[in-house]
């Protein structure tokens, strides 16, 4: 806390024009401390996987000594882990495609058609933003069961598409509105229909927004826990979050292995995020600013 109170004292004495120059060492120090706090637990999980249980018991916060690669090797050799990676990948990809395709089509209507009920339709989707899945999970479970989709990835994918639509639409609508009318007019003079315009112009032009929403949908699906917990009872259909938790309770004594399993399961989301960081952050802030 003392660290976080430092910046006021630091800046008070500095003239405002200093903003344009390189920051002071104190700035770097505070940034470093903050990053260390952010990454500490992550590093603990990753390094813990390289230790063995007696090391962890003797010194809970120590470094691997010696480094032990068996935990990671065992997890990577297990069929369960790869099956769960596969399930998560299928659920993630199908959710992403569904959200992007349906979301782009609906956003196109909201952005470029004028019709009675357009405002109501936008409000309908925007309202969905206020109600994450938690509120609807019990009835959603009943509904999925009535549809006979229990223990199938489809039972997870369909609701995820539905709950992903509000964010997607709110990000994409301003994007599609920004496409100049002249392009549409030119296309219509050339004899292209509204639908032709959609497929030939809108889809390629909105690609950056589509990538943002697609990544958001994928990461949300990759990390989602509550819905799979309700829908997927069969071990063979487990996605990674369920698998990690099942593994953690099954091997609760084998802390090192749990940590190895846990760190391996976060790698895909981390890679994905690092690759597309700019788009995710840009998309989020774009959505917030409308």
């Amino acid at each position: 806390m003392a660290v976080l109170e430092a910046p006021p004292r630091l800046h008070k004495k500095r003239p405002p024009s200093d903003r344009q120059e390189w920051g002071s060492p104190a700035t770097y120090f505070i940034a470093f401390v903050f990053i260390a706090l952010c990454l500490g637990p992550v590093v603990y999980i990753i390094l813990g996987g390289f230790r063995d249980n007696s090391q962890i018991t003797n010194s809970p916060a120590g470094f691997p000594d010696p480094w032990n690669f068996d935990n990671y090797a065992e997890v990577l050799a297990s069929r369960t882990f790869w099956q769960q990676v596969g399930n998560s990948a299928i659920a993630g990809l199908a959710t992403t495609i569904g959200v992007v395709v349906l979301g782009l089509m609906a956003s196109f209507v909201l952005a470029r058609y004028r019709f009675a009920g357009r405002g109501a339709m936008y409000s309908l989707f925007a309202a969905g933003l206020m109600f994450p899945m938690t509120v609807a999970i019990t009835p959603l479970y009943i509904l999925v069961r009535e549809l006979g989709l229990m223990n199938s990835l489809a039972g997870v994918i369909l609701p995820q598409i539905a709950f992903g639509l509000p964010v997607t639409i709110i990000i994409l609508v301003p994007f599609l509105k920004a496409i100049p009318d002249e392009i549409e007019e030119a296309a219509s003079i050339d004899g292209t229909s509204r639908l032709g315009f959609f497929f030939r112009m809108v889809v390629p032009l909105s690609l950056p927004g589509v990538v943002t929403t697609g990544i958001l949908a994928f990461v949300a699906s990759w990390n989602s826990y509550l819905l799979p917990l309700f829908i997927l009872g069969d071990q063979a259909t487990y996605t990674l979050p369920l698998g990690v938790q099942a593994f953690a309770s099954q091997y609760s004594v084998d802390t090192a292995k749990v940590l190895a399993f846990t760190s391996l399961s976060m790698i895909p989301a981390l890679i994905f995020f690092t690759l597309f960081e700019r788009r995710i952050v840009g998309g989020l802030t774009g959505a917030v600013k409308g």
Partner: protein
Amino acid sequence: MTDQRPPRDTVEAGDGAHAASPAAPRPRRRAADWRKRLEIILLAGPAIVVFVSFVIFPVVLAGYYGFFRWKGFGPATDFVGFENYLIILQDSAFHDVLRHNGFILVLSLVIQGPIAIVLALLLNQKIRGRSIIRVLIFVPYIISEVIVGIGWGLMLQTSGSVNGVLESIGLGAFQKDWLSDPSIAIWSLMVIISWKYIGFAVILFLAGLQSIPDELFEAAAIDGASYWQIQRTITLPLLGPTLRIWAFLSIIGSLQLFDLVFIIWGQYVASTAGTSTMATYMVANGRTSGNFGYGSAVAVVMFLISLVIALIYQRFVLSRDTAGALTEGKK
């Protein structure tokens, strides 16, 4: 675009007479109008169908089953009126979860808001490596709740690394039972929540700061304003819309909190450790105990609480931001 409306009115007016009407333009306009409607249905239809069936319909379904004592199989026949709701409102365990949710809601705003603003102001300076810093502080947000829960759960257990570090730096006296002592557990939860979500707040605020034109700062500096005067009179007011949206997302998130609590404390320990939330209460008393009628009623109560808070917030706070994404549809 709006000029497409009058023709449609004429078409509708002349609907019955169109067979007798020899005028060429009318059927063509009518055809164009139908074509437009067909396109709208074709393009927006699938999204609306999926959204309504899996988002709106379940909430309605919960409203229906909330009036029944129902174990989840076969048709619900044991109609009990408002009995489920009476039980919920009188259940002291539910009062506890309400208190916990309220505590988490307020403390999330109070802890994360100021710290994130200070950090965002700090990182908004032209310092080296700003983009890599942005990536790194976002890492906790991108990791799943399950991993966060398992990692922090292991770190905070009595024989975990937090107590280990305290021991090794000579602060063994401060070792605590971080997770099961009811007077501490909810603070541990607040630390974990802050750790997980503060990066998101910082990133949002940074983006908000970057959209403020530099000229304003330069003009204020020329007028002799101090750094803190500038922050108070220019930065914070202009950051207002971002702050208000962030607070909204944070409030909704606090009301829905489930994953972290469920993973770290499980469904039964959470109530004795004082970290249970509305959502864990709903799962423990609904699905886990097989009382789907009761669980649905809890869902409805949660829904109403979130809805009322969201509407009040939108009405009194967000309505100030004319360009807010959430308010756009209502303009």
